[in-house]
């Protein structure tokens, strides 16, 4: 019997057991939720649905769109693109995390020791810093590409300038092929 088959024979029951354990754990949660009153449970279910809709309809498309904008801005520079994506990710997550704090500060915190930080000012500085980082990275990326294109002569003048076709970028960055999840 091959090693792969033996592994598969052992793995199948283990997977089934793990799956059953997962269902059992989730049922504990369902039973715990049933212990709560009916109204809050319905509210929680609506919020669960809203969380998915908000992510799939707003957050995910916004991420795709931001990526496309940065691709154009960075014009094929892998390093600039990576720095820009990281900078925007940092401030985007910072913003998401302080939304509740901003809301509480707008309503008025319960006492002066709650939310002492001026999140709006923190975010303003963070977004400005991120914008500067993106612009500097993109400018440096474009400059580097132009210099290297100039150095390679006529052949290189045909190199892709847009971020939408940047084979050189992927190779330079060592990006893995990342097979499709389908």
């Amino acid at each position: 019997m091959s090693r792969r088959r033996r592994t598969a024979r052992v793995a199948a029951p283990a997977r089934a057991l793990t799956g059953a354990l997962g269902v059992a754990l989730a049922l504990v949660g369902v039973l715990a939720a049933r212990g709560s009153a009916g109204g809050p449970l319905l509210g929680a279910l609506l919020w669960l649905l809203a969380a998915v809709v908000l992510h799939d309809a707003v957050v995910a498309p916004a991420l795709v769109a931001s990526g496309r904008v940065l691709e154009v801005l960075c014009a094929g520079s892998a390093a600039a693109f990576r720095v820009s994506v990281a900078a925007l990710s940092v401030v985007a997550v910072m913003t998401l995390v302080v939304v509740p704090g901003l809301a509480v500060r707008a309503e008025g915190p319960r006492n002066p020791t709650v939310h002492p930080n001026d999140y709006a000012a923190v975010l303003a500085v963070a977004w400005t810093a991120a914008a500067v980082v993106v612009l500097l990275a993109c400018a440096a990326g474009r400059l580097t590409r132009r210099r290297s294109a100039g150095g390679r002569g006529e052949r290189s003048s045909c190199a892709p300038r847009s971020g939408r076709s940047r084979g050189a970028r992927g190779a330079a960055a060592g990006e893995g092929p990342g097979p499709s999840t389908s």
Partner: protein
Amino acid sequence: VSSTRLVDRAEPFVRSLRRRADTPGRGPRTTVVLGRLLGVGVLLCFATGLFSHLVQEQPAWLPLAPRPVWLYRVTQGVHVGVGLALAPLLLGKLWSVHPRLFAWPPVTGVRSALERLSVLVLVATALLQVAIGVMNTAQWYAFPFSFRPVHYALAWVLLGSAVLHVAVKAPVIARHWRAPRASGPSVEAPEEGVGRRTALTAVGAATAATVLLSVGQSVTPLAPLALLAPRRPGLGPQGLPVNRTAREAGVLQTARSADWRLEVVGAAGARLVVLSLDDLRSMPQTSATLPISCVEGWSQEADWAGVRLRELVALVGAAPDSDLLVSSLQVRGGYRTSVVRGPYTEDPATLLALTLGGEQLDLDHGYPARVIAPGRPGVLQTKWVRRVEVLG
């Protein structure tokens, strides 16, 4: 016929959405890398959250110990810190699998329908659990349900659906557990979009920044960096933050009244001792350096002094390891009473505190007397105490 037309029209649209969403970083290796971190984070949050739940509920069957004094501070700090880190990790992982949302046909049979349903439960639970967790630490109760029971129930559902997801995806996880061997550029390598390294760098940077700018509310040396945290150590009356003020609790008059007395009641009301503040001050005073550790994640160590609880209950002939019910003057809000289990009563650092940092307690910190015990959540450190009753 019309439904067939609808499907015919939907298919190219969905396929185009998938094409637009596809990018090289959105591969199973990225998903597995982020999934591993997410799995560790979910496990840590579940374990520390369950611990906090049990410490607050104090079921009789569970042997809880007050030592080490820093235990609850650490577990709850980890719970909130890791919970915040889950936000970028979760968004990153969902980003990595987003094109799968547009798989066509969406369902190929009962098995795939069940798989999609389990993923829906997992995603919805994870998103809501992180969202309401962050909202609760900020005290933004915009949701139409009570936080504690829902967060507790969702924790089990999230853990269960994550375990089920691991079972369903085990072959993919095993295949991509290790990094692919570098074997030169692949002919199939897509040439555009966000790559794996870019995606992981972005998620790593966002996670590091979120944690670094928040964790100072419980890790005091990092307090100056706590720009995103709802609390700042050292800020508040007597240098300590406050959750419920005397005004909120409705004790402005009663706590300052010259008529205030502490009732110490023996088991089944057998004996009653009534003490004034001066009586308490004339008893042996004990000092202890203990943290206030809030369920919302912030914590700070402080110097307390007062009467040991075990010496107080000895006045009514109770054993030093008696279970106690402590009642507050508080007329509004939860946690007006708390149970102190025997091991906590017996601990020499468990005090009915009268001073903080060498000064009389501030009204917002529980003047004239409050409970402070090692290893207990802040909500159980009852303020404005009026009665201590021996149970059983």
